[in-house]
């Protein structure tokens, strides 16, 4: 290290691995806290109280209150929890699609080009428009949005997995297994899957931030969750009506909370990637 001066800062005494683990631990802890606390909020806790309409942030109501006197902090927290749930559903589903596609592509040349063509097809319509289409097609709601997001976000992971599988397929041990007469399925299970498992985990976590953001955007536009649900997109689109009257806290804090949530997922994902990927271990 360049500055070998003795430091009393505990952070600088840790090595990279410890720092990475600490970052992952902290971000996961916050995320878990958000989800758990949102689960404990009943919809009945978000009561309307017209005595405290449109109050700016105070210690009692950290994020202020809305035009029905509801506490914005509770609503935001509930919304974040909902976002994480939908994000989880969408990312896991899109990972499954990606895995299925990548495995299909590894069977033979024709299926492989079919898969690249499918990726092209899904990338040729702007994401937002495609999510809107799928969401409309499936009748909207949480189901529609989850499906929309899932069906638009598998492409990146599928490409990564395809490249990995191709590389593994040319390796000596796979060729040897083929000579031994092992079936494709056996090879896929014993040689390919263990090697791509880390990619799948990292890929799923890194879909999360995009999924959450797209869900919020589509809900904001009015194609996603129904207006009575406490989603961040709904909160923000409601706040649009009150912007002109100067109720800035209605839009600022929920959005900021969503930003932090997305950032935490990104940080956690990137650090887990660093931890699992042996090529970056010597940085």
């Amino acid at each position, binding site marked *: 290290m360049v500055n070998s001066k003795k430091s009393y800062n505990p952070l600088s005494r840790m090595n990279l691995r410890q720092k990475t683990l600490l970052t992952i631990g902290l971000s996961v802890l916050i995320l878990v806290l958000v989800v758990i606390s949102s689960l404990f909020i009943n919809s009945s806790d978000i009561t309307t109280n017209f005595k405290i309409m449109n109050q700016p942030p105070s210690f009692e109501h950290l994020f202020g209150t809305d035009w029905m006197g509801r506490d914005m902090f509770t609503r935001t927290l509930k919304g974040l929890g909902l976002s994480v749930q939908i994000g989880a559903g969408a990312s896991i589903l899109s990972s499954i699609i990606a895995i299925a596609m990548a495995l299909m592509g590894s069977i033979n040349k024709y299926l492989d080009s079919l898969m690249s063509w499918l990726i092209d097809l899904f990338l040729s319509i702007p994401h937002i*428009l495609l999510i809107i289409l799928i969401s409309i097609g499936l009748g909207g709601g949480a189901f529609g949005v989850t499906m929309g997001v899932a069906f638009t976000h598998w492409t990146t992971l599928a490409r990564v997995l395809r490249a990995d599988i191709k590389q593994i397929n040319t390796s000596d041990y796979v060729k040897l297994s083929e000579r031994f007469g092992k079936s494709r399925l056996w090879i896929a299970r014993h040689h390919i899957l263990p090697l791509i498992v880390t990619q799948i985990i990292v890929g799923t976590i890194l879909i999360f931030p995009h999924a959450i953001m797209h869900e919020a955007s589509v809900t*904001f536009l009015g194609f996603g969750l129904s207006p009575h649900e406490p989603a961040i997109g709904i909160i923000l689109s409601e706040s649009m009506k009150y*912007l002109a009257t100067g109720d800035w806290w209605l839009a600022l804090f929920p959005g900021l909370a969503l*930003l932090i949530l*997305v950032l935490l997922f990104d940080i956690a994902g990137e650090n887990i990637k660093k931890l699992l990927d042996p090529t970056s271990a010597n940085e």
Partner: protein
Amino acid sequence: MVNTEKILKFLGKKIVRFIILLIFVILLSFILIDLSPINPVKTYISNVIISADQIAKLEAYWGVNEPITSKMVNWLGNVVKGDLGTSLIFRIPVIDVIKERFTASLVLMITSWLFSGVLGFLLGVIAGFKKDTIIDKAIKVYCYILQSAPAFWIALVMLMVFSIYLGWFPSGLGVPIGSLSENVTFWEWLNRLILPMVTLSIVGVASITLYTRDKLIEVMNSDYFLFAKARGERGWNLITRHGIRNILLPAITLQFLGFSELFGGAVLVEQIFTYPGIGQAAVSAGLRSDVPLLLGIVIFSAIFVYCGNLIADILYNFVDPRIKEGEEDG
């Protein structure tokens, strides 16, 4: 020199591929819309009270109860003739709506695309050049935050700060209330363009900055860069001669590949600033089940994205001198 024949062949192949792709895009969106509980007749009659007999007539006219195949064949037949149908909410041909809206959107998208490209590239070069300094860290943090920020929220905050709190810009609409779009002066129009444009640019900066930074650092670690340094080149001159020359083209290519994201950003930004562009039209078409308009917009957005990808491909395959040489036997 660039081989014209090869480019033509390349273009021909690309266009054929695109037409096939477009057919499937149409097929996909058609099936999705057909699956949905959307009913164009309801939109068309909106609140007018008419008899069940007339509804049945209209349904027959729109072909609501026909099977999807014949619906699609009818629609496709008209599309080939250049007729995309009539928009249900604007009551004028879809092609006219798209023409008007897309021009407005293109102005917005292209200006912010250029702006974000130049700004992102500059920031990336500065961050790469000043690697590990406070400037680099500031730029990196800025990019990470922007990447995680929902575009529509940034637009909301911009609207809040600049049009409501500071009052510098009007809060929305392409033209001032009460005047026709033909009578708008250039400055009035520009005044309304600035805020959406700046927002869209800010949103698009992050990816290009981070890419440029990484590429520049890669170049700075290379042997030829080290040699240039050893020859006594230094400072900004060194970066322009060896760094930027190497990273400019990939950065431009990346910027062209971002057309899809640009369109998505435009949808959200237009919705918030109520800018009368294609994105806003798409949202109202979706919300008010204007099927012909929605399908038309999907097609044009696919063409838009494909143009970006095609330009990126051409830049990559024909303009980049390093790849051109390797292609000779290909």
